[in-house]
């Protein structure tokens, strides 16, 4: 049995966003290489204490692969716009077509310990969908997808904007300073990378071909 699982706007946004995120992580790591130290507060430079100091990221992880802060910024500042406006359009569209309300709304009962434990057991047994309602996302999917769309991506966009020298003072203060915003930006990138690893692992476990096809054509085969 096949079900139509992902609408066109969802599929387009998914791939556009996936590509943008990969470019932004690669170019972001190159930008980080120019000053691989992170601070908390309004200021932070070489003579100030850093809470994190890392070696430079290797070339196979960065965009471009050779050292170029200017080149990385070309990629980063272009795809930052693609990511931000893509998310904005996807959000408005998904409210209008009720994708968010229907598929991502988390109900209180789903967060009960019994339901969470039951779903965790089902994941452990590689059962990811409810046979009664195969189109519905399980609670962990909802938390992960809603977390990315409503928390991580907006946090990355706002902390990125807060690094602009002339940005609204209230936005800089929201993060506790420009260097704090830079640290939050990095931590949110790490969280996004963690999501990507888990997401890809679960696509593999749930059936790579079927899952990827559903995000290309929209049609998903319900597992037997």
């Amino acid at each position, binding site marked *: 049995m096949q079900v139509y699982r992902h609408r066109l706007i969802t599929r387009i946004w998914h791939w556009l966003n996936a*590509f943008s995120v990969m*470019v932004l992580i*690669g170019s972001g790591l190159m*930008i*980080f290489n*120019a*000053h691989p*130290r992170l601070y908390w507060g*309004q*200021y*932070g*430079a*070489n*003579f*100030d204490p850093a809470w994190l100091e890392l070696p430079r990221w290797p070339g196979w992880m960065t*965009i*471009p*692969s*050779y050292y*170029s*802060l*200017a*080149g990385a*910024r*070309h*990629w980063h*500042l*272009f795809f*930052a*716009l693609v990511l931000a406006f893509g998310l904005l359009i996807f959000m408005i569209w998904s409210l209008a077509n009720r994708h968010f309300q229907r598929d991502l709304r988390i109900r209180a009962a789903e967060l009960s310990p019994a339901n969470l434990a039951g779903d965790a057991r089902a994941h452990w047994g590689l059962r990811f969908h409810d046979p009664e309602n195969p189109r519905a996302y399980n609670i962990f999917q909802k938390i992960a997808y809603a977390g990315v769309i409503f928390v991580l991506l907006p946090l990355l966009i706002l902390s*990125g*904007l807060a*690094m*602009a*020298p*002339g*940005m*609204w*003072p209230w936005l*800089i*203060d929201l993060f506790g300073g*420009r*260097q704090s915003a*830079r640290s939050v930006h990095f931590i949110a990138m790490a969280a996004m990378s963690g999501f990507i690893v888990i997401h890809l692992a679960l696509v593999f476990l749930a059936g*790579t*071909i079927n899952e*990827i*096809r559903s995000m*290309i054509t929209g049609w998903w085969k319900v597992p037997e």
Partner: protein
Amino acid sequence: MITRRTLILGTGTVMLAGCDSFTDSPVLLSADDANRFLQRSITGRAALAKQYRPDQRSPIFRVNGTANPNTPEYYALAANRFADWRLRVDGLVARPLSLSLPQIQSLPQRAQITRHDCVEGWSAIGKWQGPQLATLLRLAGLRDTARYLVFHCADRFGALPYYESIDLVDAFHPQTILAWALNDRTLNIGHGAPLRLRVERQLGYKHAKYLMRIEAVASLAGVGQGKGGFWEDTNGYEWYAGI
């Protein structure tokens, strides 16, 4: 057989390998103009960059870029504590100026505690003092055809003199000053003595040090290699360094 998976993986590899060659493509560079438009639209053209309290200043304000121009001409000026130094303001102006440091210090002053953000990622907060650039431009009488201000500097990278440029929106912004003091002391050589530009809504490389001449121009095409600044010309940094 080409499965979707190999197709996707193959496409991914080609795209990553292609990244390097797209790095300086005009498509990516178009984001500079878009970001300038968006930033000025959302924050407002006259919006002030965040200002800080005296106790929020960096304990040490690090020196970056040129720490000393190291030219015979500059040494001669510095040896005399810049008594023979003059700032020229010329180009598309009605009344070209040649101002000494005491003359600049006697103009109406503005002091501001602001954050210096380097393109590399670090920030330092300090108190800067000097006249607003707008004051000098009114004294010189900017012509209607002037669109940009070019800042010519005493320092060189190899054979190339450092220069930078800004448009009139930033030139007449209240926080755009010509600073001769940092943290209540006369500017030292490392920070750009005797005079440097502060253009607080842009990144550090726009804040030209060791100022010698301010030139009003209609176009940046004839200056340097035409991209509006030393780092823009030689390394491809954005001309509008607002983010």
